[in-house]
């Protein structure tokens, strides 16, 4: 299955090809996946995924549970080494070692915070670790201010509410000055108020020039935030359209069933 990138700034429907969907990217894509396959224990989680993204707007990766969204995000970030295919970010392959791509940040669905204050959790970011003690602290406090957690700088991170923890994780990711921010279900299990705060923060991060690729089960949130939707099912990308077009006329039966809440649950496919 192949889906390629939409032109920046003008989401449009990619034309279908014989084997799926394709669109020639305009210029070098921010992100490029070629035949990315991940098959742990003889189960196909990612099935030869081709994906190119120029990085326009906010892109939402949606699909049922077990479709492979989280694994795909981790693979894009470099936390999972695919069994076949390659991932390129800004034209570069991930260097050796176990580090994630430079220039990317990933906020997990359940962010792991360290046993210390909210401020301590920002001070671990290597980009600011090289600064002197005072500038480092000021930089971290400034970031807490931006995400509305300045008053909680000295509060224990593990005692923050779900929404505050998620904002702290976003602050930590933002502090790395990423060019691509990956969000895995950023508002899962948050109440509407906390969800709205996180969504506003995502908009702020995007407005600062950082590209955003996110997964979400919250279709209302996808409609509010995303400019473009990619639908994934059983490890394959099946549909890709501008958000309004996707919700108006999904191209595949699976996407249609998913939107209607009638897609039969299916995990990955045996290899």
């Amino acid at each position, binding site marked *: 299955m192949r889906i390629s990138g939409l032109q920046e700034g003008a989401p449009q429907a990619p034309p279908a090809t014989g084997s799926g969907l394709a669109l020639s990217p305009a210029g070098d894509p921010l992100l490029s996946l070629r035949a990315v396959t991940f098959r742990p224990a003889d189960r196909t989680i990612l099935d030869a995924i081709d994906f190119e993204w120029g990085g326009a707007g906010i892109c939402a990766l949606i699909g049922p549970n077990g479709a492979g969204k989280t694994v795909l995000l981790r693979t894009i970030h470099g*936390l999972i080494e695919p069994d076949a295919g390659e991932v390129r970010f800004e034209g570069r392959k991930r260097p050796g070692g176990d580090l994630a791509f430079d220039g990317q940040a990933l906020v*997990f669905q359940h962010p*792991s915070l360290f*046993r210390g*204050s909210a401020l301590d959790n920002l001070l*671990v970011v*290597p980009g600011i670790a090289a600064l002197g003690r005072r500038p480092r602290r000021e930089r971290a406090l400034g970031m807490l201010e931006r995400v509305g957690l300045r008053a909680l700088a000295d509060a224990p991170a*593990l005692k923050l509410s779900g929404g505050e923890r998620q904002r702290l994780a976003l602050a*930590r990711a933002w502090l*790395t000055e990423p060019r691509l921010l990956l969000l895995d279900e950023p508002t899962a299990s948050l109440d509407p108020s906390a969800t709205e705060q996180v969504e506003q923060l995502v908009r702020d991060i995007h407005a600062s020039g950082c590209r955003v690729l996110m997964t979400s089960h919250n279709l209302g949130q996808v409609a509010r935030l995303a400019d473009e939707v990619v639908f994934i099912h059983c490890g394959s990308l099946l549909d890709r359209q501008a958000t309004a077009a996707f919700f108006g006329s999904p191209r595949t039966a699976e996407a249609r069933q998913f939107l209607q809440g009638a897609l039969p649950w299916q995990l990955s496919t045996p290899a």
Partner: protein
Amino acid sequence: MLSDSFGQATGLLHTFEGDVLEIVALSLRVSLTAVAIATLIGLPLGALAAVARFPGRGALVVLLNSFMGLPAVVVGLAVYLMLSRSGPLGPLGLLFTPSAMIVAQTCLTLPLIAALTRQIVEDAWRQHGETLRSLRLPLGSRVYVLLWDCRFSVVAAVLAGLGRAMSEVGAVMIVGGNIDRVTRMMTTAIALETSKGDLALALALGIVLMGLVLGLNVVASGMRTVAMRRYGS
């Protein structure tokens, strides 16, 4: 006889008569120094074994786990052979000095502290590993952050090491020689005085030893509880 001995032991503790104070002070100096050295080496070693991937890592982990329960007399014998006049470190002239006992207790507690630290940090790595890789932290920073995150649990590992050091008798007896006013520790003195029939001094030292170990654990446990309450578990 037992009640008489308890009475005399209490008297000794009231006045700190005899060698009690000297023996307690030497015991604390030796054990605390040994545990401090073992902690300085064992914490990063254990954390590295948990986080880093290198050839021989599996063997190191097996070695650390095996050496956790190393018999004290075997460690004493090995250190004795190293420090004896014909041994490789013989020219240093450390045998039958407090320094030799520090070396022995360091060898005894290092694997324990390192192995427990590895287990603690490995659990933390499972929890935070992807975040640390995502943040692109180099190995040294990962070790530092994880040790900092596990600091309350690591204290328990250090205390286990201190407990082992303060309660062992075999190694310090072999490399220290239990020389009066030179290398006599609480444990070796208890063994000697008991064999001589001076139960009062043995009991007094035993009470001090138990009190110290218990006191240290109570303080550490209290600090841990307060800290966990402050920062969350």
